């Protein structure tokens, strides 16, 4: 921890760590966001946009105080420093920077995906001027440059802040984008127009302070002021990145990283960012369905829970209880309690972890492996489960995606076509969609419809939050397991 020294910001005394970046100190202390384009807290500082200028007075060599404009991202806190963020000189300097940026910026906010969350738009509205003074024609550039499968580049909108250029070396450790050509002809591009590769391209659209880099998948899908953002945690791998889920008309349309200093900083991988189609699937199960000789009987959720409790209680210690690796800690505990009452073990399905990419993505598709292990659930491989499933007196497979893991399907795929499982007559599955081969299907909430805790690979507990409303009548996983346990107790199991 650096030494705290007094510093004067806008004529008020504050304490700030010596040597800290002025732009962060001002934002943290006064809550005032200094406009910035090139500065990003998780990227190297270049100080090229000059947008974060403030007026400072600091001791200069020769022990004289000198007043000057300085970019707050490249200035560190010194002894005897005074800062004015809104002095006429500072405002004028920033307005000048904006005017030059806007001189060639196309006025296509109505079609730009960034509009509504665009720093250039916000700063212009806040401190710029609405009238242009230039009579020169605007610079023409390529509007639709494909940079691979993920990102589309609009060179006219680019303000050459070079955040995207610095992103790849800083996060992935290799260079992909560059500023090509010189001076007024500068554009962002890749060598030889090669497409971008890697698992982190999606972050470019987040860090781009204008609409130059946009996501192909989100392009023109929704206006950002209509989407409803909710903080949650990513469940696509065991990293558990902090995310923000944007929902629009009851569907997930975009996922963005949320700052978490201990886990993912400002980034997230493309696997987590783009696999959300499975959350928008129609045909959800919202009731308990029992397979009977002639077809299927609708028991309702309560009736289904009664039936499940009876089957499990009658099987007693011969029952096989397996949870999905997507269970939250709370659901895992509920499953554990149920298993204890029946006199058996609770397992969770533990698929073989794949290879990670060495940055954020761990390759382990089980998001809560560590948490469920810590709770005391026994890991069980898909092969073992397949072997034990048909022989068990009664079995309960609990939690969304468990059949995807069992059959080795991609859990993020939007594909509902899960093959029929050979599970025996007294088998119960709790899943988001009706499944074939089970004696009883009960409804589950998906990872964006339930709240709870997951423990990531580092052992940090992070929260899941309900982003979308669950289909009507679908209970929370904990509530459903509790109802099953109550029914089991009524049939003689020692639950509770």
């Amino acid at each position: 921890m650096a030494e705290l020294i007094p510093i004067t910001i806008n004529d008020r005394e504050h304490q700030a760590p010596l040597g800290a970046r002025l732009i962060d100190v001002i934002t943290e202390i006064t809550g005032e966001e200094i406009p910035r384009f090139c500065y990003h807290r998780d990227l190297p500082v270049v100080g090229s946009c000059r947008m974060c200028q403030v007026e400072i007075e600091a001791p200069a060599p020769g022990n004289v105080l000198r007043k000057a404009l300085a970019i707050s991202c490249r200035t560190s806190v010194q002894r005897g420093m005074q800062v004015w963020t809104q002095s006429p000189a500072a405002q004028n300097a920033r307005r000048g920077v904006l005017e030059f940026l806007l001189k060639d910026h196309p006025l296509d906010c109505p079609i730009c995906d960034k509009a509504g969350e665009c720093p250039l738009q916000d700063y212009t509205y806040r401190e710029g001027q609405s009238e242009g003074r230039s009579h020169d024609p605007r610079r023409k550039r390529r509007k639709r440059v494909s940079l691979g499968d993920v990102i589309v580049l609009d060179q006219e909108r680019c303000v050459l802040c070079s955040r995207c250029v610095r992103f790849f070396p800083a996060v992935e450790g290799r260079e992909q984008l560059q500023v090509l050509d010189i001076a007024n002809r500068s554009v962002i591009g890749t060598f030889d127009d090669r497409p971008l590769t890697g698992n982190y391209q999606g972050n470019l659209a987040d860090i781009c302070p204008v609409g130059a880099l946009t996501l192909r998948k989100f392009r023109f899908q929704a206006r950002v002021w209509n989407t409803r953002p909710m903080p949650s945690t990513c469940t696509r791998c065991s990293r558990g990145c902090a995310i923000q889920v944007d929902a629009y008309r009851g569907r997930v349309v975009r996922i963005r990283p949320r700052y978490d200093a201990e886990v993912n900083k400002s980034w997230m991988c493309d696997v987590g960012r783009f696999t959300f189609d499975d959350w928008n699937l129609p045909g959800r199960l919202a009731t308990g369905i029992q397979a009977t000789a002639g077809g299927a009987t609708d028991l309702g959720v309560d009736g289904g829970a009664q039936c499940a409790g009876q089957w499990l209680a009658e099987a007693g210690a011969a029952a096989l209880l397996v949870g999905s690796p997507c269970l939250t800690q709370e659901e895992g505990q509920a499953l554990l309690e149920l298993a204890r009452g029946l006199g058996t073990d609770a397992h969770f399905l533990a698929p073989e972890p794949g290879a990670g990419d060495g940055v954020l993505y761990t390759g382990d598709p089980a998001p809560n492996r560590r948490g469920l292990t810590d709770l005391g659930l026994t890991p069980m491989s898909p092969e073992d489960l397949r072997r034990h499933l048909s022989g068990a007196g009664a079995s309960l497979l609990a939690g969304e995606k468990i059949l995807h893991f069992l059959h080795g399907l991609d859990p993020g795929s939007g594909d509902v076509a899960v093959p029929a499982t050979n599970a025996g007559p007294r088998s119960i599955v709790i899943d988001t969609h009706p499944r074939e081969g089970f004696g009883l299907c009960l409804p589950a909430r998906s990872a964006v419809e339930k709240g709870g805790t997951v423990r990531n690979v580092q052992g940090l507990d992070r929260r899941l939050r309900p982003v979308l409303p669950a289909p009507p009548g679908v209970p929370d996983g904990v509530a459903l397991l509790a109802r099953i346990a109550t029914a089991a107790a009524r049939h003689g199991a020692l639950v509770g």
Partner: protein
Amino acid sequence: MTVRRHSLSWSERLYLPAVARGLAITLRAMFRPRFTRQYPEEPMPKYPVTRGQPRLVRKEDGAPACVSCGLCEYACPAFAITIDGGETERFIEREPKRFEIDMLRCILCGFCEEACPKDAIFMSQELELAGYTREEHVLGLEQLLRPASDFEERMRYVGEINHRWHATELAARARTGNKDAAAAGHP
């Protein structure tokens, strides 16, 4: 409370003078100029200020002028407008794939016209709105599009209003030095 009744005189009880007076009024009215209108046969006169149902502008190349920016959807106080955007190969990359106005919701306020940055939606001079089902009042893109020539007068009129508003705002801003002065003080 007691209501005191006025007792009628002999001539009043006869009623004939009153009937004659009434007929005289009717007779006089028959020779006065008419101010009612045989509505469906005689349509209302239309002016640029007439705020009829909102309609979309079709450009000369046949494409909608709308770029589906969603501002009218956002401005609409009655939630009558629904837009889905999509990508096109044209120079302006974005166009509406679906543009629906539920005319049963629309309150003809004209906020959509005011919000539009592309001069793509205008209050037309079409006033008649009748139908047998709810569904036929949800108008889609093809039912809403009209050639730009239909809106020439209205475009000029709206342009004048915007110009006047802009001048007022600039003046207010110059007077107070406050950016939001006009927004706060202007009706």
